[in-house]
């Protein structure tokens, strides 16, 4: 280890800023950022790495040490429309003091949620020489509907944010409100030197929205998993399908269940589908009722098994019990972690043919696509799987796992190096480092 107080020449001090700590909020973005942080800590190119995660339980604005190198910041964004932190005073005072103390060369934000958009401006004002990166894990800047790019009400897929169309999704706002929102996001993003997205799909959405294509770098989230499993043999894995993740309106579990209900009896009899899902109990009651009604006959016939929620340490074991992982989401998905987890365990993936899913899963190579939101298409696909036993073995051969933490780390360090070695940062806006 290098002495933290003395900067080795050419070595970087990196600050990772995340919207949540995976110990309290184990979402895909938080987990990926934490994996990157741990990788950077071990890297010889980096002198010092610090992890700062917001803790949206309160808005006192205090930053305190959680454990060595890891800090929690009690800050939050309550209003995703303005995306401003509740405690701006703390952003100006506590966050500024924190940045000054660390004096990082690289400030790498993951997400702007809870940190608030003003943090980019303040980071630039406080550390005018630092390179600022932002990993975009989602589309909240583009779409107020939880960043889903799915229309409110009709639930139709949305291709591009337009002031008038956005207003139609949110009738209490005006088109001009959306114009102002986009303008504020864009003004805040001007302080970012480079963007990272985990998928080309997400990159394209941000390019369509107005970011400079040259400034967005695609680096897949690194997944740390156990060693790929030795394939279990003779347990009909090719007829066992697993659904993993939260059961929300957008995850398409209802599409899967409808497809199973449409299956010919002799096909259905051979299949086993396991649901490793959580949070059904907190969904809206009409959705819950729908899911329960669709599940009831399937559970009775033994096609479906409701296994329930799992912890991260249980994931590998659970995935080992099935041959396919299914991702039937009705929204785009940016880069679902579950796909990389499946690949890490050598499992092919069945998924909707849109967005980040279609990008990450290659049809007929390491998985199968079906027409998104179409339960009949999925039923046909499941029939094909049952009737073509050799299909599974062929696709298993095609599965490659590349989204390792090492890979992500390597690409990220290359990007850091490019940015820090460049003669000048593309500076947008006037930077005021001295305020009276």
């Amino acid at each position, binding site marked *: 280890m290098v002495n933290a107080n003395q900067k080795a020449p050419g070595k970087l001090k990196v600050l990772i800023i995340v919207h949540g700590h995976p110990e309290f909020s184990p979402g895909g973005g938080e987990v990926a950022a934490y994996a990157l942080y741990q990788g950077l800590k071990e890297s010889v190119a980096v002198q010092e790495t610090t992890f700062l995660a917001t803790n949206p339980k309160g808005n006192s604005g205090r930053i305190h040490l959680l454990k060595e190198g890891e800090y929690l910041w009690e800050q939050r964004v309550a209003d995703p429309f303005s995306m401003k932190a509740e405690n*701006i005073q703390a952003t*100006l005072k506590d966050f500024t003091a924190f940045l000054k103390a660390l004096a990082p060369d690289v400030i790498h934000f993951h997400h702007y949620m809870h940190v608030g958009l*003003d943090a980019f401006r*303040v980071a630039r004002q406080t550390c005018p020489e630092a390179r600022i990166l932002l990993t975009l894990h989602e589309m909240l800047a583009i779409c107020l509907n939880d960043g889903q790019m799915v229309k409110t009400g009709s639930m139709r897929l949305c291709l591009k944010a337009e002031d008038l169309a956005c207003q139609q999704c949110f009738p209490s706002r*005006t088109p*001009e409100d959306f114009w*102002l929102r986009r303008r504020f996001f864009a003004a805040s993003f001007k302080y970012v030197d480079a963007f990272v997205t985990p998928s080309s799909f997400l990159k394209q959405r941000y390019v369509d929205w107005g970011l400079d294509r040259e400034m967005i770098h695609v680096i897949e989230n690194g997944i740390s998993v156990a060693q790929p499993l030795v394939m279990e043999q003779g347990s009909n894995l090719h007829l066992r399908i697993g659904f993993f993740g939260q059961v929300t309106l957008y995850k398409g579990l209802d599409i899967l269940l409808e497809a199973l209900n449409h299956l010919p009896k002799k096909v259905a009899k051979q299949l086993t589908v396991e649901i490793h899902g959580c949070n059904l109990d907190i969904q809206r009651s009409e959705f819950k009722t729908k899911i329960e009604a669709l599940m009831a006959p399937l559970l009775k016939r033994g096609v479906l098994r409701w296994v329930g929620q799992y912890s991260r340490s249980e994931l590998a074991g659970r995935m080992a019990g099935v041959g396919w992982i299914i991702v039937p989401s009705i929204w785009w998905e940016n880069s679902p972690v579950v796909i990389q987890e499946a690949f890490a365990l050598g499992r092919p993936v069945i998924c909707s043919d849109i967005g980040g899913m279609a990008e990450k899963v290659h049809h007929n190579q390491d998985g199968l696509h079906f027409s998104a939101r179409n339960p009949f298409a999925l039923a046909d696909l499941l029939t094909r799987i049952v009737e073509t036993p050799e299909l599974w073995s062929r696709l298993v051969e095609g599965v490659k796992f590349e989204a390792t933490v090492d890979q992500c780390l390597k690409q990220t360090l290359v990007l850091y190096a490019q940015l820090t070695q460049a003669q000048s940062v593309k500076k947008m806006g*006037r930077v005021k480092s001295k305020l*009276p």
Partner: protein
Amino acid sequence: MSTMNGSQVQNRNQIAFQSEPKLLAPREAIKIDRAIVLNNIVLISGWMSGTVKLLVTDAKKFVIYERGDVSPALFDKVRGFLIMATVAPDEWIKKVTVQHNEVAYNSALPLTTELSEIQLVLSEHIPRLAYILSEVKHEQEWCKLLYPFIPHYASDQVEANIEQSCAIMGIGLSVLGWCVSRSSINLWFFSEFGQMRKLSDSVKFYRQDVTNEFSGKFGSRCEMSGFFCSIAGPVTPGMKLSVVAEISGVLFKVQEKVVDKGASTALGYARWAFNIHLPHSGFTQRLASHDGKFIEEIRRREIALEEAVPEVWSVGVRPATPMASVIVPLYKRSDFVEHQLLSFENDKDFYERFAELIYVIDDPALYDRLKHDSNVLYKLYGVPMTFVFGGRNRGFSGANNLGASIARGTYLFFLNSDVFPEETGWISRMVDILVSQPHYGILGARLLYPQGAVQHIGMEFVYSDSLNLWLNEHPGINLPINRDLPAVISVPAVTGACMALSREDFAQAGGFDESYLIGDFEDSDLCLKIRQMRKDIGCLTDTRLIHLERQSVMHAGGDASFRQCVTLYNGWKHTTRWDEQIRLTTNG
């Protein structure tokens, strides 16, 4: 009723006033009961019998009527009489003359002004109140005394309902309802304070509900039975107001209501009055003959109220001698400040202290938030700002005038909070033009919609025949940008969303006129004042200032129809004031 002229009769005999009847022959007598005067209107009443004839020397008219209270056992052919006349104080009737058998008799008249006596007379003449009313020519004090004696009566000739009423203390009242009658009879609004107005003066409008309910009885007369009417005069809430009808010479109250308390602000009154859905085509006529003057009067009072000393504070160091002061009133939305700062933070004009930024908090609801946020906004954006809070909402003119009153710049820029420049240096550029081309009194700027179409590139006056108003129109609005225009063009007027002029000219013109409501026409009003000072109005054609037109206002009222009415009101005021000047401008 008959009239006589008694000037040729000789006066020889005196009759005692108000004593016993004067017996002139058996069963023939004359008696004068009462003689009163109020505001130069004289009323004399009494009776006569037999062949006694009434000769009135000074008064022109009198009325004769059956009198049942005098004993028919003692007198023949008893007839009451009621004489009324309007005379100057020095020409008061001194006597009444009667004639009997070619002999004239006089009665000296000790006219009384005693209130109780007047009330007594009126109570005796309830069937003749219509005659009295016409003779007093609706004189208010008489009407006020008359009012309580008008009986309530449910006639099958007329139906009316006063549905809403609104009294503005000391100014007048407005009333809304419907009235339908079988034939064309005299109908009035009649207040207990004696204010009157003919119901036929009302703005009439279609009432489906009345038609449904009463067409069986009144036929098609129901259709336009809706009325809206304003009655000027010193009124108070809680006073009574009636619809009074005259049928066969008799007055009666068709309906009586207590008048509600109206708003005490011009805008508050307008909110009530403009929400009454009258056809817009007759709107200016309605303003001219009904409540337009009320609103002006309330507004005058508001402006005359003594002002509290405004609170002023600055964040950052306020420029001591800026060339320009940019004045931005804030209403309903405080978030626009931050969105504007996104434009200003990189503008040299601000950070090199060429211009000072003044936000006028024109909405008490925003005060706390801005008081709290102003320092944070300065820390984030580094643009020094001065805030001024005048304690209440003043509207476009009042807010801008307040801002101007504390401004230090040689040039004043009035900028709406929903204008977001997409360029820097536009302030110094406009000042340069004002300095180098001094024939321009006011300069405006090209404003664009967010999507890039033109929102404003000068205003012109266009006469609306349907509204009888001059309207301010934006030529080229919603059209693509025209790049062939010279950098500055002369225009009839420019929008107040962004205008610049010297502080000297602004002061000489008396600032923005504050008698308009909310915000329309004050900008063209100022332009016309500057034109009167023989200066031109110019507009830059290449600026890129995004204007989210009407966003703040839509949030204010919500009701588009109300806003339209306010615009019509302001337009009516503007046209009344500037018609001649605009015609000169337009022809020139």
